[in-house]
């Protein structure tokens, strides 16, 4: 074999690995949020947009030139990545604000109907389904200061379902029933389940045979992937008064023996993957960290909700390197491709930022956001708080959150393949930009 053939073979293998790193939430099992390939530093046009029947909170994944994602209309979709034409759709009985994983010719995804599904990736035919003990949102009395304070209220910001990770013949995912499940990926048979004290809607990351995930019970867990036995747990913040500053909604990234995770207690934590010991924390002044951090070149990239800040911190010390003031809350997780960071914003905008400086390179605003129905946004695209959250009484904050989502918010985490940026919007479309 001559050198040129070896180079071609290596390039093919690298490309195949890169493509595999686009077939589950945050790219691969460690959830670093980094993707191979070119990144558009300029916006040219909408390549296509694919309509669904409801919000698209799910993040798209890519395998063999097909984009897969879940819709809040209850369907799983397979769409041709080049043309945006539907290949197949399959209905479940509930919204699917989760990101599918594609492996072994199978699409895995959970639904709000309380079931976890495996579909044939080519045809959409059902391979198996597994019933959990049922889905539910995080809930509490007096949540976020809502009144009446003695009434239990479901959290409108608990918007994602756990996204699965597939490895070693198993599929792992969290559930609103408080369990982390391990199923046989071929049959759907239960291998084990691990019980936590509350909703698990964060997505587990897998590294060196250990699953890492957080729960709304305020603990972050490390569990042996083969046995389901707990290795360690870490206690995040508590908020017994209004339950606002509690719970792990962010999904972790595991890089070089460190677990990075956001928390609703306003911290971004760096934990030792072997022991669970805290290495450092970055406090965000009571602003949630819902985004799942991206990690590359010794830096951690994440964003906050209310303070709407985009941060880059040193991965080993947590010291700030870059911060940029954004326009609105960010729940979407940053995707790093080449020298560009892509992130969705809840004001209905997708942003492309320079990897080094964090400067905005370009942004794209969906039409529904431009229309600004009911003045959900201010003139400069921030959330118009007096028009949204002027009442804490009964369902008012829930209605306001729906209005906020209705602007076409981008909760979905972007995926970049061959220079095309794919993401979902709460306006009901999946977008492909180039």
């Amino acid at each position, binding site marked *: 074999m001559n050198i040129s053939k070896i180079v071609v073979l290596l390039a093919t293998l690298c490309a195949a690995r890169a493509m595999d790193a686009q077939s589950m939430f945050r790219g691969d099992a460690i959830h670093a949020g980094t993707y191979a390939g070119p990144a558009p530093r300029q916006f040219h046009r909408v390549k296509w947009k694919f309509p669904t029947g409801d919000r698209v909170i799910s993040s798209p994944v890519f395998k063999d030139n097909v984009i897969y994602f879940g819709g809040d209309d209850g369907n799983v979709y397979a769409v041709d990545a080049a043309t945006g034409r539907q290949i197949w759709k399959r209905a479940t009985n509930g919204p699917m604000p989760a990101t599918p994983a594609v492996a072994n010719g199978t699409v895995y995804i959970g639904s709000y109907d309380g079931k976890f599904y495996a579909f044939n990736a080519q045809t959409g035919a059902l391979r198996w389904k597994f019933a959990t003990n049922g889905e539910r949102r995080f809930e509490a009395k007096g949540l976020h200061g809502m009144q009446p304070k003695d009434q239990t209220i479901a959290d409108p910001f608990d918007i994602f379902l756990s996204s699965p990770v597939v490895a070693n013949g198993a599929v792992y995912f969290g559930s609103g029933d408080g369990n982390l499940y391990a199923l046989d990926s071929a049959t759907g048979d239960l291998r084990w389940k691990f019980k936590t004290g509350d909703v698990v809607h964060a997505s587990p990351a897998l590294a060196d045979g250990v699953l890492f995930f957080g729960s709304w019970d305020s603990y972050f867990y490390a569990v042996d992937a083969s046995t389901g036995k707990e290795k360690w747990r870490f206690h995040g*913040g508590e908020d017994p*008064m209004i339950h606002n*500053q509690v719970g792990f909604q962010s999904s972790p990234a595991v890089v070089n023996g460190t677990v990075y995770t956001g928390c609703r207690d306003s911290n971004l934590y760096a934990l030792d993957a072997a022991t669970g010991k805290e290495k450092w924390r970055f406090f965000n002044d009571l602003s949630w960290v819902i985004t799942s951090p991206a990690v590359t070149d010794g830096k951690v990239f994440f964003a906050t909700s209310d303070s709407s800040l985009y941060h880059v911190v040193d991965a080993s010390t947590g010291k700030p390197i870059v911060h940029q003031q954004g326009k609105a809350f960010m729940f979407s997780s940053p995707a790093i491709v080449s020298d560009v960071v892509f992130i969705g914003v809840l004001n209905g905008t997708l942003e492309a930022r320079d990897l080094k400086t964090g400067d905005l390179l370009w942004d794209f605003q969906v039409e529904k956001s431009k229309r600004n129905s009911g003045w959900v946004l201010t003139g400069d695209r921030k959330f118009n708080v007096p028009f949204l959250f002027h009442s804490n009484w009964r369902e008012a904050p829930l209605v306001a959150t729906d209005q906020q989502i209705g602007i076409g918010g981008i909760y979905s985490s972007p995926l970049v393949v061959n220079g095309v940026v794919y993401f979902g919007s709460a306006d009901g479309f999946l977008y492909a930009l180039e």
Partner: protein
Amino acid sequence: MPTTSAVLRLIAMLIVATVLPSRAEDAISGRWVGTARVPDEELTVVVDLAQQNGAWVGSIIIPGLGVKGIPLTDIKVESPDVKFAVKGSLGIQMNLQLLPPPENKLAGNFEQAGNHAPATLQKTGPPQVEYPPRSTPVAKELEGEWKGDYEMLGNTRHVSIKFANHPGGATADFVIVGRKHNVLPVDLITQEGDLVTVESHDIGFTFEGRLREGNLTGAIRQGAIETPLVLLRAK
């Protein structure tokens, strides 16, 4: 020498000149009800405008936004132009024009947070301006500085309230120190019986307490969150 008819014409003109402005003011004074046409929504707006001691006063109601009787500021009436603002976090500016009879309408622009919408208001009756409550004096033994602590999310907050009486009512310096040093803008201090209340509407904080055995015993409230708080006389 002017003729009698010329004198009469001059008198008539003077009468018209003095009456016209008051007629214009009469036309603008009143309760105005209408809508601002926000995209996909008609926002009901009720504005009360009146003259008091030669100056314009007013208040606004927006039922959809929890706004009831908030005072208008920067009122400028130069008939047919009517302009006013609503200060604070809401931040509204309205620039209207009185349409000629028989329209009996104010029409123009409703502006908030950089957004603009056309607005039309119809006069429905006499003004019902709401006036903001005024601070009362506080008892002599409350004057001076009070201090206390409370716990929130595992952190201690240090509170200081310093009362002073003035001819127009009491004032108070209201400071909360946690991770940050927060000086709260106080809108209203009232004492009813032995209950004293200090309110900061813009920040959404209220302290209320009673003098008990030399301490101000009560609670601090932020939105729906209420925490017990005892303030001691500062040394």
